[in-house]
């Protein structure tokens, strides 16, 4: 019988099986940021175990609040920085080189098909877009990962999402994943891996696939996996060209981790991409979605474009296309946070930053910031934000504030209109 990608990865990385269904896996990469790693670092020091299993497999970044906004966040950065230095962790991205982790690390070529990756961050599932088993964990799992290079998981079943057809103009990966979460619910994929299949996925860029995989956790999924293919090889080629003589050779190697045609799935859900329309969330859960066209006039105070979900170059290009030659409503503040320095630099070269600024946006450095209400655009009580982020929990962007999740195109259109709207009027 065939295997899913997750089963193949579990099998090739198994260190131990303490009991049926529970596996200790060796880790190909441990990713770290300044919010959840200090607890692990301090605990290892307290236990007299201040060491790391392999500095070359650890990647670290200050991203959640950057630059530091107060002494506490500065101290978290310092703990991470000092630790990275004394353990010679080469790939530590400090202020100036840092970006949002789940945009930065793929951009630097740290992810491979078939990899096992953990991070103390629930959106680690993003890297499943490369055909990796990438899962968010807590600080204790991270601590053991740092010390021993292993992590324990109950083997997840896999839910297959098959999307046929093609997305209509003005409809993007963000709308598709909101549609999927709205269909299966915030707990619908708990202890499962989502696998994304179909023409629509095959046609997507790696950036769009990362938008899909990023929000798999919002349906409760352990990870969100896309099959490695030519698109994956092309994206990774600059980083792997010395490992393979041709891209075809890389494709064949990566193909080992594609799910077998006769793999067994816990669920198979088929969708027609042509039925997906621009969506927005309306309540306090990511599964509360409805067509933007169905929103009564919903005034907004802030538009936020950025994050590990939708802060990449493709997202900025789409939003800039909507904004070009126009100005945002006078009642709206627009904030753009390109997810990495490279995205920012490229956006400058392409004239996108000028488009955003001419439209009236505030352009900030790369950081997570407002996504979780820590900095860079926190809402006041009673305010409403249209955002390209991934969570609309009550108080998420600021106590008493309301967040509507949507695509970068819809967010840009909303900024122009001053109320929730999709980009159809502004396309072309």
């Amino acid at each position, binding site marked *: 019988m065939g295997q899913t990608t997750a089963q193949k990865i579990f099998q090739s990385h198994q*260190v*131990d099986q*303490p*009991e049926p269904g*529970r596996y*200790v896996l060796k880790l190909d990469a441990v990713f770290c940021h300044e*919010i*959840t790693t*200090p*607890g692990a670092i*301090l*605990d290892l020091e307290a*236990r007299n*175990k201040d060491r790391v299993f392999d500095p070359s497999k650890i990647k670290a970044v200050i991203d959640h*609040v950057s630059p530091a906004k*107060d002494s*506490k*966040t500065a101290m*978290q950065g310092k703990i991470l920085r000092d630790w990275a230095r004394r353990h010679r962790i080469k790939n530590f991205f400090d202020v100036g080189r840092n970006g949002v982790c789940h945009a930065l690390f793929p951009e630097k070529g740290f992810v491979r098909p078939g990899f096992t990756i953990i991070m*103390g*961050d*629930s959106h*680690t599932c993003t890297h499943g877009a490369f055909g990796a088993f990438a899962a*968010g*964990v*807590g*600080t*204790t*799992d991270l*601590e*053991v990962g740092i*010390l*021993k290079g*292993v992590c*324990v998981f*109950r083997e997840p079943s896999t839910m297959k999402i098959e999307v046929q057809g093609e997305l209509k103009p003005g409809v993007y990966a963000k709308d598709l994943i909101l549609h999927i979460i709205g269909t299966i619910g*915030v*707990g619908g994929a*708990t*202890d499962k891996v989502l696998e994304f299949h179909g023409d629509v996925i095959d046609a997507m860029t790696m950036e769009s696939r990362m938008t899909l995989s990023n929000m798999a956790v919002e349906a*409760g999924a*352990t990870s969100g996996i896309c099959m490695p293919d030519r698109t994956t090889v092309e994206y990774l080629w600059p980083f792997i060209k010395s490992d393979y003589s041709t891209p075809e050779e890389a494709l064949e190697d990566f193909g080992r981790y594609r799910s077998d045609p006769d793999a067994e799935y816990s669920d198979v859900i088929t969708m027609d991409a042509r039925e997906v329309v621009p969506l927005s969330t309306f309540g306090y*859960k990511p599964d509360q979605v409805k067509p933007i066209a169905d929103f009564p006039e919903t005034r907004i105070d802030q538009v936020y474009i950025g994050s590990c979900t939708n802060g990449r170059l493709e997202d900025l290009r789409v939003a800039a296309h909507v904004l070009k030659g126009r100005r945002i409503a006078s009642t709206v503040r627009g904030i753009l946070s390109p997810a990495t320095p490279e995205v920012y630099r490229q956006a400058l070269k392409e004239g996108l930053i000028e488009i955003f600024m001419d439209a009236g946006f505030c352009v900030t450095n790369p950081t997570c910031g407002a996504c*979780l*209400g*820590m900095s860079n655009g926190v809402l006041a009580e009673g305010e409403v934000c249209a955002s390209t982020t991934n*969570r609309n*929990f*009550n*108080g*998420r962007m600021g*106590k008493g504030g309301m967040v509507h999740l949507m695509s970068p195109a819809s967010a840009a259109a909303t900024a122009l209109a001053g109320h929730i709207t999709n980009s159809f009027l502004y396309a072309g």
Partner: protein
Amino acid sequence: MKRFSGEVLFLDRNDINTDEIIPAKYLTEITREILGSHLLEDLVLEGFDPAVDIDGKGVIVSRDNFGCGSSREHAPWAIEARGINIVIATSFSRIFRQNMLNCGMLAVEVSPEECEYLFSHFSDKRVNLKTNADTLNFIFSTDTEEVEIPFYLTQFEKDLIKVGGWVEYADAAY
């Protein structure tokens, strides 16, 4: 091994997320006591007042998908800092459940029927839970009523709880 008994706090809602358990703005706190002081601060739930309803409790009973959202282990830490070492629900998010076990705390699933029984019979009363982590038994009692509910832990989970958490376990084993 921790103590898994005490008075019960009922939180009658599905999908209580980790931002509601401990808001992100407090993730810069390193001391557990300060984290604990902000437990469930932002939870909007009819009849629940974090200022008075948490003190003195040792157990949380809730509904579906408890602990969804962020992976922050600060959520179990804040719960533990207020003297609560066990959460009982019909289901948990994967990361929250694993974090609880990793800290030597219990996140235990009961069936929807058992959960509904607890809410309908006990949620408006003072209820005490006595947990036997060896025989895997819950005994919920008020002045007038007592109900016993067996629960399930795998051997691995029992070992984690007994030894105090995942760091202790992994350090010895790997």
